[in-house]
Each structure stands twice: as structure tokens, then as C-alpha cells.
């Protein structure tokens, strides 16, 4: 079996100084099959339901604390 590549940066590497063509335009829909083009477009996420949080305790007044 072919050994897996070990993607480890050599210790002397540093960020490229001259890279400008970075942000590509968005992909078009060439990756979608004809069937996929019929699927509904979804732009929203369902809200997340957080687990119930314990009620915050009332801070004690100085009189109660003493």
C-alpha cells in the first residue's frame, strides 16, 4: 500500500510574499447535475436550541452578606 503523504511544513518555510490572485470568484453551477438544479435553494439555517441554563442567583445585598 502506498504510504500516506505527511503534510508537514519544512521548518524554514514562511508565507509567500507575492501572492495576490487569492480570492477566486464564486464557483458557477457547473458542479450541479441537471437533477440537482431542481433541488430547492436554501439560504437559512434552523435556529439552534440551547440547553436550559440554570437561573442566575440573586446577588446578596451587603446586609444579607454580613
Amino acid at each position, binding site marked *: 500500500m502506498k504510504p500516506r*503523504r505527511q503534510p508537514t511544513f519544512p521548518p524554514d518555510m514562511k508565507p509567500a510574499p507575492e*501572492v495576490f490572485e487569492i480570492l477566486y470568484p464564486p464557483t458557477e453551477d457547473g*458542479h*450541479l447535475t441537471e437533477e440537482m438544479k431542481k433541488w*430547492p*435553494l436554501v439560504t437559512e439555517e434552523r435556529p439552534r436550541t440551547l440547553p436550559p441554563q440554570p437561573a442566575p442567583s440573586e446577588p446578596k445585598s451587603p446586609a444579607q452578606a454580613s
Partner: protein
Amino acid sequence: MSTGEWSEREEPDIAARHLLLCREVTWNSADTEARYSLLGLFTDIRPKGTFPLVWDRPLYTFVQFFGSPGEYEVWIELVRLVQDETGEILDETEAVVFGPFDLKIATPFFIHGRSFYLKTVPFDAPGLFEFRIRVAGVYDVLVTERLFVEG
């Protein structure tokens, strides 16, 4: 297609790591040490709707490449990993393929960050999906990242 110093007997010398998914990548040419900013990193989404569907919100992939100088052709694959009830991966769906994207590595011993904006990402069903970065002429997947799509 140019593939750097690749020959039939030898694969291109290119590797990648740090594939991340996020909602936005910004670029600041004035900051020569930290040009990229990644906003809204995520590992799971909860589309509002029924499957199958096409996710039409910004989905950026950010990758760091390094290797020998050359011009490479990058592809991004997306598959759904079919799991049993214990989570064991049994199979995977046919890949949706984005690309090709041109990648130039001009100088050796440098790291090249790249961001790819994927628009209209199809999800046939809820579950665990995997993004894979491939380069033409390289047998192995360079780097992967998983995304859990909640139903």
C-alpha cells in the same frame, strides 16, 4: 495542463493542510504578514428545509499549500459518508466536483494560502460530508475536512 515538475514516473511535489470551512475570507494586501482573515468558522450547519437541497449561503474553503514551484490544477470533491447507527463509515456517495482552480507556486520553501468560494453546494441528505482537495496528477487526496449537515 502544466503540473510543475511532474513526469509520468513522479507525482508533483505538492502538499496541503489546514483545510477550513468558513463564511467569509477577507484579504488585506497591506498586512504583509497576515493577509488572510477567516470569519465564521464552522463544522456543522442546519439547513432550513427538506432534503435534498442546495445550500446557497457563502461557503469558503481555506487551504494552505506548499511544495515545488509549478502550476497546478486543484479540484475540490464533496462526498457524503454513509454511516451505520454506530457511526462507522460504510460507504460514500458519488463525489460532487468543484473546479478546476489554477494554483501557482512560484517559489520553493513558501506556504501559499488559498481560498475557494463554493457557491450552491448540494446536499442530497443530512449526514456527515467530507471536502477533499485534489491536485491533477496526484493520486492521494491532499487534505480533507468534514462537515456535519443536520437534518
